[in-house]
């Protein structure tokens, strides 16, 4: 807007021929659905950032072993409860490149704890693409190359080391492999059950609907955690970590589906009266086909958005179970298992870095929440 000398206002923006066209004729509005959704989603900055963060986190999972300087159960017996070390670039005003200062541990026999002294006179440059412990890239390619590791005679504990002298940073990267996938497997189970029962109840109605509805009500009225506890207590203790991991994620999913089923059911109740459903039925489509081809695609995107919002609950659930010792157990590494070490006040006071795994949990949960909010807002066609 610009004010002319005679007091009138004038819009400086060049005249666009598109402005008078209705929405359908404008080329920028007549785009495939996903382009429209993407355009709206892009404006949701917090959701976009969260989405990118989550994408990067999941992409990191298969190559966690490469990024981590240590393997999860590699012990440095001389460095128990070592505090976090920083990576420096400058030594006494001189540029040396990334390096660490070596530390030495002494036992403080008065307070019964380890104290660490940093020797700031000897900068020790980090090694890159160096050889370390063996691990499996993508889960099956054996390799021993790490992105960076500590020089001989020093350590690189970015976030400190734990009770057994294992690197917290590396363990967080490895822990992500289980903690982040628990939510995905759980949501798959819950999605399958929720859509199946919800659509059966909504489509057929009548007695089926009544029965399924009662089950949903009962399951929703029960406190989740005690049931999770009871179900995980039923997992035999002699099963391997992988089996326990799968069964835990399935348990998390089994108790999560009622919410989803309710949403699906209420949608189906209104959609099944539409003409196109009648038409499909008259042409002889079986209920299964009508549900899968004609009804579900209608609101699949909304279901995905709500699924995104229920992943955090599962991640927190796994953490809580492992923390209580009923979820994943010791040789397996997950964020909950790691937090098990930070269970008492003493470790939070003396070794606060053992509680660091809570940071990735908070970030991931927040990111899923924001991403879900953003998706939900941009998938809603009536919102601009």
């Amino acid at each position: 807007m610009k004010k002319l000398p005679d007091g009138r206002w004038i819009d400086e923006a060049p005249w666009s021929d598109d402005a008078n066209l209705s929405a359908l004729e404008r080329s920028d509005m007549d785009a495939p659905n996903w382009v429209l959704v993407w355009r709206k989603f892009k404006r949701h900055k917090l959701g976009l950032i969260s989405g990118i963060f989550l994408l990067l986190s999941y992409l990191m999972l298969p190559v966690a072993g490469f990024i981590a300087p240590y393997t999860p159960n590699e012990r440095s017996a001389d460095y128990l409860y070592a505090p976090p070390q920083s990576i420096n670039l400058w030594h006494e005003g001189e540029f040396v490149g990334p390096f660490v200062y070596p530390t030495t541990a002494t036992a403080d026999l008065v307070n019964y704890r380890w104290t660490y002294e940093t020797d700031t006179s000897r900068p020790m440059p980090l090694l890159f693409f160096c050889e370390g412990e063996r691990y499996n890239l993508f889960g099956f390619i054996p390799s021993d190359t790490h992105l960076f590791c500590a020089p001989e005679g020093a350590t690189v504990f970015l976030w400190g080391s734990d009770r057994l002298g294992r690197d917290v940073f590396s363990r967080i990267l490895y822990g992500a492999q289980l903690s982040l996938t628990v939510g995905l497997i759980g949501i798959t189970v819950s999605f399958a059950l929720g859509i199946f029962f919800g659509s059966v109840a909504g489509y057929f109605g009548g007695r089926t609907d009544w029965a399924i509805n009662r089950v949903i009500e009962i399951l929703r009225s029960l406190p989740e955690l005690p049931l999770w506890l009871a179900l995980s207590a039923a997992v035999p203790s002699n099963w391997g970590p992988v089996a326990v991991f799968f069964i835990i994620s399935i348990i998390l999913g089994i108790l999560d589906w009622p919410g989803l089923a309710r949403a699906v059911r209420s949608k189906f109740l209104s959609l099944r009266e539409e003409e196109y459903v009648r038409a499909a039925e008259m042409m002889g489509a079986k209920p299964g086909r009508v549900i899968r081809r004609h009804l579900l695609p209608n609101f699949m995107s909304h279901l995905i958005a709500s699924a995104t919002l229920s992943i955090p609950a599962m991640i927190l659930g796994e953490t809580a179970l492992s923390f209580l010792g009923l979820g994943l157990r010791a040789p397996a590494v997950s964020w909950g298992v790691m937090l098990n070490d930070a269970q008492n006040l003493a470790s939070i006071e003396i070794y606060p870095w053992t509680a660091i795994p809570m940071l990735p949990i908070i970030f991931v949960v927040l990111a899923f929440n924001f991403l879900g909010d953003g998706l939900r807002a941009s998938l809603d066609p009536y919102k601009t």
Partner: protein
Amino acid sequence: MMFLRYAIYRFITMLLTLWVVSILIFVIINLPPGDYLSNQIAELRATGQAEGVAKAEFLRTEYALDRPIWEQYLIWVGMAPGPQGWYGLIQGNFGWSFEFDRPVSEVVGDALWLTVLVNLAAVLFVYLVALPLGVIAAARSETWVDYTAAFVGYLGLATPNFLLALILFYYGNKYFDLPIGGLMSPEYEGEPMSWDKVKSILVHLIVPTFVIGTSGAAAMMQRLRANMLDELSKPYVETARAKGLGPAKLLAKYPLRMAFNPFVADIGNLLPAMVSGSVLVSVVLGLQTIGPSLLTALKSQDQFLAGFVLMFVALLTLIGTMISDLLLVLLDPRIRYGARGS
């Protein structure tokens, strides 16, 4: 009269639900292979203690653990005569805890009331915090008040409960001199109620209430804010404002009442989450609620204790949900009585 009929109907559905829940719970606690006594018998046999075996065998028949599972269930609930006659949950017998070698009612004892107390305090906290904050966040939407409230709320949602508990305990003790652990000072345990004891319990409740309530309060606040915003954009609010109604009355007279219904109805969703949270937090903080006994019972397959605790927790949520349904009907004249729409 209509209300009374609805209340009775609601009560009966609650009892039926409880019955289904009891089956579910019994199945779940019997999922792990074996039971406490057969594990013990195997252990005693392995170490060659014959007299112990005889006692355990006796207990097995005494508590009907050698019968088929459906019969065990009926005896447990009290719908069939057991070895001691009709004596199950319905008749007020909560069973025997093998782990503690005492009746379950003695093991849980005071913990039941403390559990109710902790959860009640948390629910109160949620409402007391969420109500003013939600209204203010809506009235001053997109200002720093709104953003701060949303930020704190999101943080509360995302932080695992148990960690929040540990951290708050640590800092609460360091800076505000709040007591650590437990629900009362040790000297009051087992003492009769007195004013000092009540005070001690109240001080100990601060951190647990806060921890259990935060995530619920955050969710509740967001919902109230959304509802209020919907109401505030309606023409009647505009009219009221145009006629010069003061800001407080403008908010409280109609929009708040409209936005309030979902607030009450929500307790059905809120309560299960709160009870879950209180179990976890109790374990971490060592509160004398039934949370810790549930954990030990589950770990050692002490089935009657675990079953009773689960039943109690379920009962608590079911009663809470029922009360919220009844309140909703009282508050909102538009809701029709009867089975439909529930």
